[in-house]
Every structure is written in structure tokens, then in C-alpha cells.
């Protein structure tokens, strides 16, 4: 059982996780136009997420949020040289097929969009393009990996500009991994049952002390210090959604968050990055939101 399931040596799986490895230490930025994509690339983003609306607007405007139009995605694919990601609805494998046909570099099966299936996520092993999925705890992360996710990110609370949920999810994932490492083989059986995660993956995590795929953070990152916080809590890269283009000076803020991510453990650099940034996005108190307004409870 030292080998991670039967797919760890599969070449397709290795190049999927390989691209996720290349994004480590970087910032993946939500963009809704070619202009924004170019600003993001110039600011040092290691990838962009092509969207029609950023999560803060999806939250405000309501309605059904779907995959972005192919035109927006294609324009962004042509405008930048860094990897381009796009979101599909949870369980909507036909949207994912369209995104694969568009040749995006990564698909985010995302709770930010309105779920298409309330029971099942996409069987991601069926695709050649890699997937990232959100998770709130270790069990959820391992279920997504079992389905073929090549990267995990915390869900946080997208579009809130509030880091509290990303911190909660990251601490949960990292803390549960730490606890698994203390368990004996026979105890891992009960632990995996309790988490609702495959035993092979729980065993791999217990013996290696980390997820078998890169572990990133998303959902509420709005400042350089937010990025430094999640990086020090164990994230290997960050996604910034509404935080950049909902601020008063996106270009400067984008660059500052990139800098703080690389130098997360160097407070002097994070300080430098935090100076003269203008207004951050306003943000929401997550505790004032109704349960039904939360995006993170979508998926299981």
C-alpha cells in the first residue's frame, strides 16, 4: 500500500500533478477580460482564472452562475502565455468537456458556480486536462483526489474578502493530516471511515505527512498579509478572486500579493508589499450571511 492507489505512476496523472507543482509559490488571479489578464500576467501571476464575473459580483447579482462563455476564455487564452484555468459547475461534466475542447490548462470544479449535480462530482480521471477542487476538510480533499483532482484548494468563502473561512479550512486540513500521522495502521481504517475518504489515500497521507497533490488556498484573500498568513499555515500557493480587481488599485495590489506570497515568511517584505495599496475590497462578515448564502457548503 506504499503506492498511492493505482494511478500514481500513470503518465497522464503525473503530468497533471506536474503542472500543479509548477504553480507552487505563486498567485493565480481571477480575471474577466483580456485587459485584466494582461495586468495579472505583468504583475507576476503564475496563472489566471478566466471568468465572466468575479465571485463578489456573482454573489451580488444572484441568478444561476455557469461556465464562462467560450469567447471570453478563448480571448484570454490568446492574450497571455501563462496557464489559463476556467471553472465548471460541480458535477457538470459536459461543461468540463467543453473546457477541455477549448484546451484550457486547468479546470476548477467550483462551488462558486451554481452546482449542476447535488449528489456527484465530476469523475476527473476521465479527462486529460487537470482539475482543481475546493475542500473544507481532509475527507473532502481526499474524496476529490480519489475522483482525479490534481490540485486541492481550500474553499474559504469566495467573494467575501474575508480570510476567516480559508483559515478554518486550511487549519482543518493541515491539523487532520497531523493527527493521521500519529495513528497506527489499524486505526487508519476507522479514521478513513469517519472522514469518508479512501483508506489508501488516508494511509498515504499518514505516512507522508502531506496531500499527494499540491495544496493551495482560496476564498477571501484580499491583502498581502492574507496571502502571507495562508502560506505560513501550509498553503503552497494562493488563488485571489475578487480581492484584486475589486480593489482601488488592482495593478499595485496584484504585484504586492505576488511579492508577499513568495516572501511569506519575511515580514519586512510583507510590510513593503503592504504600503500604499489604496483601498482593499470592502468584504463581508461571514457570520452575517445566511446559511443559504454560503458558497462553501456546495459540494460534499
Amino acid at each position, binding site marked *: 500500500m506504499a503506492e498511492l492507489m493505482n494511478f500514481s505512476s500513470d*503518465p497522464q496523472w*503525473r*503530468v497533471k500533478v*506536474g*503542472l500543479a*507543482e*509548477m*504553480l*507552487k*509559490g*505563486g498567485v493565480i488571479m481571477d480575471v474577466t477580460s483580456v485587459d485584466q489578464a494582461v495586468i495579472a*500576467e505583468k504583475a*507576476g*501571476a*503564475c*496563472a489566471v482564472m478566466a471568468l465572466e464575473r468575479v465571485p463578489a459580483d456573482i454573489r451580488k447579482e444572484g441568478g444561476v452562475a455557469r461556465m464562462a462563455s467560450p469567447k471570453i476564455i478563448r480571448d484570454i*487564452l490568446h492574450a497571455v*502565455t*501563462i*496557464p489559463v484555468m476556467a471553472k465548471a459547475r460541480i458535477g457538470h461534466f459536459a461543461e468540463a468537456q467543453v473546457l*477541455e475542447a477549448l*484546451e*484550457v*490548462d*486547468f479546470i476548477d470544479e467550483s462551488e462558486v458556480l451554481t452546482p449542476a449535480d447535488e449528489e456527484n462530482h465530476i469523475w476527473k480521471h476521465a479527462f*486529460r*486536462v*487537470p482539475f482543481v477542487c475546493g475542500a473544507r476538510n481532509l475527507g473532502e480533499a481526499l474524496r476529490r483526489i480519489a475522483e482525479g483532482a490534481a490540485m486541492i484548494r481550500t474553499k474559504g468563502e469566495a467573494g467575501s474578502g474575508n480570510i476567516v473561512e480559508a483559515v478554518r479550512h486550511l487549519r482543518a486540513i493541515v491539523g487532520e493530516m497531523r493527527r493521521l500521522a500519529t495513528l497506527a495502521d489499524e486505526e487508519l481504517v476507522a479514521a478513513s471511515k469517519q472522514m469518508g475518504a479512501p483508506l489508501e489515500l488516508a494511509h498515504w497521507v499518514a505516512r507522508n505527512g502531506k496531500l499527494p497533490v499540491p495544496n493551495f488556498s482560496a476564498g477571501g484573500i484580499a491583502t498581502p498579509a492574507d496571502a502571507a498568513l495562508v502560506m505560513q499555515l501550509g498553503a503552497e500557493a494562493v488563488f485571489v478572486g475578487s480581492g484584486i480587481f475589486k480593489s482601488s488599485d488592482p495593478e499595485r495590489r496584484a504585484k504586492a500579493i*505576488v*511579492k508577499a506570497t*513568495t*516572501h511569506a515568511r*519575511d515580514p519586512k517584505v510583507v510590510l513593503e508589499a503592504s504600503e500604499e495599496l489604496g483601498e482593499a475590497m470592502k468584504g463581508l462578515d461571514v457570520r452575517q450571511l445566511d446559511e443559504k448564502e454560503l458558497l462553501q457548503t456546495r459540494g460534499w
Partner: protein
Amino acid sequence: MKIGILAIQGDFEAHERRLGELGAGTGLVRRAEELEGLDALVLPGGESTTQLQFLVDEGLFDLLVARARDGFPLFGTCAGAILLANEVRNPDQASLGLLDITVVRNAYGRQLESCVTREPSELGAEPLEMVFIRAPVIERAGPTVRVLARRDGRPVLVEQGRIFAATFHPELSADPTVHAYFLKGVRDGR
């Protein structure tokens, strides 16, 4: 022997792990002063646009050019190879200009063209496993560049003096041959 790994962004930890397994001391480099006391530097895979910006902002760009001219060994993989090249195309991009090659970024296509292959090399009798991720293509290699392996007839592993580069990711393979060759070169002062 202590090998630095540029840790701005990318798969620097995979290089750190591999060099450690081969018995080398390692240190992560994010700022100019962290270059002190190192015997060589690895430029890892990642996004060359992101890495280039930090090299310039941190003053590492000019420092690396000066050190390399004094014989400081550098080893770049994928994005690292792009940074080392004399000329970068698709689009045109600034680079350290330490290796006489012309590199075309993302020349195989997007992520769907990423793959694992095996090709013969000058490093041993066994073919090398090569992991290509959104890889660049070396379109031209100058006369003093030694080509150590090719894919589809085009160079993928090259050296010129103390500069060594791969367009694939030996750090993501179980095969330590490429890193062992690099370390031997640093040790022997090749």
C-alpha cells in the same frame, strides 16, 4: 558542497528533495544575499514570466550574470532553461543570456500536449525518462553548445561550459541521473 535553489516560484522543493537524496547540501534563494556561500544554483520549473520579474526586482538578474561569467555553475529546468537562454521567442522575452540557445516558449502547445517520454542520452546507456510540462523547444543551439539528448531531433538537454539546461523536468522523474551528472560537474569543476 552546497547547492542553491531559486525559490521564487515553481517546483523548487522537488529539486531540493532530489539534491538532498544525492547527498548535496541545499539552500533556498529568494534574495541576492542568499547566494553567498553556494557552489551552484538551480533555476527550477515554474512560470518564467513570474520568475524573471523577481530576478530583476531583487537585483538577482545582474548578479547572476556577473557570477556566471566568473564560472559559477547554473542548472535550469524548463522555465529555468528559458531564463538562461540567449534568445527567447513566443513572445520575445528578456533572459540572462548565458547559454547560446534560442528557445520558443510553449512550443509543443498547451497542457494537453504535456507528456512523459523516454529518449536516449549521452549520460548513460539507459534511455532517460523525461517529463515535459508545457515545455519550450530549443530551436537553435550554438556551435559551442553540447547537446546531450534530443526529442524528435531537437535538443532537450544541453550544456555550455558551466551552464546546464533541460527543457523537461528531471526533478519530477524517479531517475536521478540528470541531477547526479550536474553534481559531478560542479564537484569536478567541469
